[in-house]
């Protein structure tokens, strides 16, 4: 038997490995590098890795859905100096203005030298949480209520309207979900999650997850939250699983005895797609300041629906008068939000006071 090819193959493989290893020692950057965040916090890094991984290894969590593959474009950070030049993989995600400001995708920036970045302060407070599934109940045929009891850290602080990112094991990606529970509930956290066929995280939650399972998530994130310094009357518009952040806002204000007027418009297809109706009706009965209206776009004859029909924005048009003094919080699918913004601004609401969460 001719063993020569096997010996040659082994020799070639080891020679190549050796050459690359030696090259890595002489050519790679191995010194200690410093990541300076907002001129206040300094992190020491050895070895070469992406900014995103360096930060998450040091418990700073930047929102990222794709897990560093440069496909989601969420992990934007401002790099002040030391990030090298912008890469072709980032260009599609950055506007000209962002490029000028030094915005980069953290998953594409390699930390090769000392680097200076600036992050919004709230991102420094983001933590990684481990939790167990306490409840997983059907709200409608395709929306589930997921309640997680926190294990470590034991409590979470967030603003009503913000979201967290749930880790999907196996796919190693994160998906964002708005918190549906009020901030006063610190030891557990609730979400309303709609099943999307072939969606990675929604399939995981709807089909694989069981009560008692462990789940990891990071948060809180997001600029969509209740402005607590304002005293303006509020108009909320949501559709489907967009219920979550609005529910958090409504419950938060309910706990303060509804100091502000809220009208909540919820859009769904049929009566079966409505949920939390009893809860919301109860709040409506207890507090005259709160008004809940649902609009069905395709009510079936069995629904015997006597409420509003058509799009949720039609109901807003019908019931709301002048909105110049209001503040609006919207959450739902993009076409609904675009229509809602049009209706609200037509009624005099300044676009700056329309906050929305697109998904």
């Amino acid at each position, binding site marked *: 038997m001719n063993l*020569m*090819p096997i010996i040659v193959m082994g020799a070639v493989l080891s020679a190549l490995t050796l050459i690359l290893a030696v090259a890595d020692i002489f050519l790679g950057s191995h010194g200690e590098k410093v990541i300076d965040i907002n001129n206040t916090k300094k992190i020491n890094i050895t070895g070469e890795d992406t900014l995103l991984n360096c930060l998450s290894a040091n418990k700073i969590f930047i929102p990222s859905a794709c897990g560093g593959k440069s496909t989601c474009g969420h992990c934007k950070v401002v790099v002040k100096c030391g990030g090298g030049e912008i*890469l072709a993989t980032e260009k599609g995600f950055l506007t000209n203005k962002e490029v000028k400001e030094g915005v980069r995708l953290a998953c594409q920036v390699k930390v090769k030298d000392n680097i200076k970045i600036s992050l919004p302060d709230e991102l420094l407070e983001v933590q990684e949480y481990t939790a167990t599934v306490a409840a997983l109940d059907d709200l409608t045929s395709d929306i589930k209520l997921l309640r997680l009891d926190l294990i470590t850290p034991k409590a979470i602080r967030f603003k009503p309207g913000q979201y967290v990112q749930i880790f999907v094991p196996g796919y190693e990606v994160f998906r964002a979900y708005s918190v549906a529970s009020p901030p006063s509930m610190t030891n557990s956290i609730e979400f309303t999650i709609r099943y999307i066929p072939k969606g990675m995280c929604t399939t995981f939650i709807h089909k694989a997850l069981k009560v008692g399972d462990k789940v990891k998530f990071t948060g809180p994130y997001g600029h969509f939250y209740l402005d607590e310094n304002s005293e303006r009357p509020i108009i909320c518009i949501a559709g489907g699983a967009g219920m979550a952040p609005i529910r958090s806002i409504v419950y938060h204000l309910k706990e303060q005895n509804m100091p502000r007027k809220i009208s909540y418009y919820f859009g769904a297809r049929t009566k079966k797609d409505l949920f939390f109706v009893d809860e919301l009706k109860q709040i409506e009965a207890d507090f005259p300041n709160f008004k809940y209206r649902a609009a069905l776009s395709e009510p079936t004859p069995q629904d015997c629906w006597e409420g509003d029909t058509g799009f949720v924005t039609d109901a807003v048009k019908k019931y709301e008068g002048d909105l110049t003094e209001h503040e609006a919080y919207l959450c739902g699918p993009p076409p609904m939000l675009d229509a809602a913004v049009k209706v609200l601004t037509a009624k005099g609401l300044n676009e700056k006071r329309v906050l929305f969460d697109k998904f």
Partner: protein
Amino acid sequence: MPSTLNIFLATILTHNIALTYILGMCPIIGVSKNISTAVGMGVSVVFVITVTSLINWPIYHLILVPTGSEVLALLVFILTIAASVQLLEMLLEKFLPTLYMAFGIFLPLITVNCTVLAVSLFMVLREYNLTQTAVFSLGSSLGWLLAILLVSGIREKLNLVGDVPRGLQGAGIVMIILGTLALGFMGFSGMVDL
């Protein structure tokens, strides 16, 4: 044995690696939207093909042939290509950072390009010596650069006109452009021979 000038001209015109052998199609379809990225890709291909075939020639003739392990050629070539691209990347990054930035994402992409492997395998099949290998690999890669340049140029012009039928937009029209170009290059046949 053909002369070196013959090899050079043939690899570009009559034996164009892209238009006659239909190799390296994915980058031609993928990165030929505009001329500047096509040039980036093409120049990286020229660079990598020339360097790797000049590395593979001595490996084949000084290691594989004396030990009677020619069967390993395919495997060893893939490994040396992957390793040498890695090494090239490190060297460029350290010593020629501007060139490294210009190549950008293209360099690692080319590692898995079939053209690179094909040139190394052809040089063995056709029993070239080192000089011929150098000319052959340079010519082949320049021919590939010419092909992607032509396709991207036509695509840019087509975009200005802009009435490609819906079903043919993207990859569809590139296949038609490539087919037409390949037919056109058949007109060179007989001019030079390998």
